[in-house]
């Protein structure tokens, strides 16, 4: 944590190398946070870049309050998503955007198709959750944040976060059971 503080301090002083380190440290969690809410990979990349540009421009305000850098960055990412949806007029994703999403990590075409289908199912399942449940479940299992960090980020108590997490997982479990007949 002290290391991150030092890096941020250097970035504040105009050290682009330090900002590159920050980027490497936080790019993946920010990208995943956005990509779980937007199916299109290209748009997720663009929005992640927007987030980092905003961080770059406002690096002077990072760590000014009690929030951790990650919480601050997630807040920027969340606001960027809200702006994106507002401009778009909807938070739904078109079929074209969905079809463009083919995970490149799949080694074969068959695996690619399977992953694509699973990904599609997961997006649909997440749509069944409430906004709070979706936020908590993705932050917990996609971004691997602790319950304490999530509580700080969304401004709720840890018990409330755990409750949202449990309810979200129960809902997901029921949907999987309905779709596949088994958990």
């Amino acid at each position, binding site marked *: 944590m002290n290391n991150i503080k030092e890096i941020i301090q250097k*970035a*504040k002083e*105009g050290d*682009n190398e330090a*900002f*590159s380190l920050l*980027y*490497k440290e936080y*790019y*993946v969690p920010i*990208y*995943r946070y956005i*990509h779980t809410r937007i199916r299109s*990979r290209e748009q997720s*990349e663009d929005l*992640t*870049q927007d987030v*980092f*540009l905003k961080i*770059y*421009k*406002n*690096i*002077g305000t990072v760590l000014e309050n009690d929030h951790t850098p990650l919480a601050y960055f997630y807040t920027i990412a969340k606001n960027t998503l809200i702006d994106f949806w507002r401009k778009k007029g909807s938070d739904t994703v078109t079929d074209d955007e969905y079809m463009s999403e083919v*995970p*490149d*990590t*799949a080694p074969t075409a068959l695996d690619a198709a399977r*992953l694509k289908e*699973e*990904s599609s199912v*997961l997006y649909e399942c997440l749509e069944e959750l409430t906004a709070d449940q979706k936020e908590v*479940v*993705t932050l917990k*299992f*996609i971004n*691997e944040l*602790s*319950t304490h960090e999530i509580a700080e980020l969304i401004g709720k108590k840890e018990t409330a976060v*755990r*409750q949202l*997490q*449990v*309810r979200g*997982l*129960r809902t*997901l*479990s*029921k949907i*999987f*059971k309905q779709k596949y007949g088994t*958990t």
Partner: protein
Amino acid sequence: MEQPKKPQPAKTIEKVLGEALELHEKGVSLHSIVRTYPEFAEEIEGAFKAMSVMSTWKESMRVPEAGLEKILRALPETAPGNAKPVQSPFVRFWSTIHYTNLKYVLPIAAVAFLTGGLIISKKGTPPIEVPQSAVMNNQTNSAVTRPMAATTAPSAGEAPLAMNATPASSVDQAVAAFQAASAKESSTAESNNEKSIATADSQAITDPTQTYGN
């Protein structure tokens, strides 16, 4: 005969799942957790399966490699953190003279100027002192002896002096002569004016095409 499974109260299931997740965070295995709560095994396994699917999904997400180069190209050439808040003109001016002596000189000068202004306004304008010899020689009454057209208003110093001074008899005579001459001139001018109006009237009557007074 198999008895129907009694539904578990939702609150209890949520509580148990919460505890199960807490144990999992502490490193307890799923097998041990299920053994701890055997009556909720199905629910716990379902929740852990959902967690597993989410984790698999996370791993399948491709993170672009070239993102750093792209963003570094997109970054402005200036140093980071240049988004400054909008400042008022006064604040900007003040910040520009921050390191100069003006910052200290200007307030002192302003205070001195205001204090001086206050002192002067309280005291008022000091009266002009006129030497006594000037009064005795009637030099201050020279304005009275001059013709009316050439006279000027007495200055602030002359006015009180003229009121207080006692005029000599020659001055009285001169004043009386001047007033008489003025009265004569005035009556002559009035009679001349009346004559010209009467002439105009007679012309207007004889020549109806002319406008009266023109």
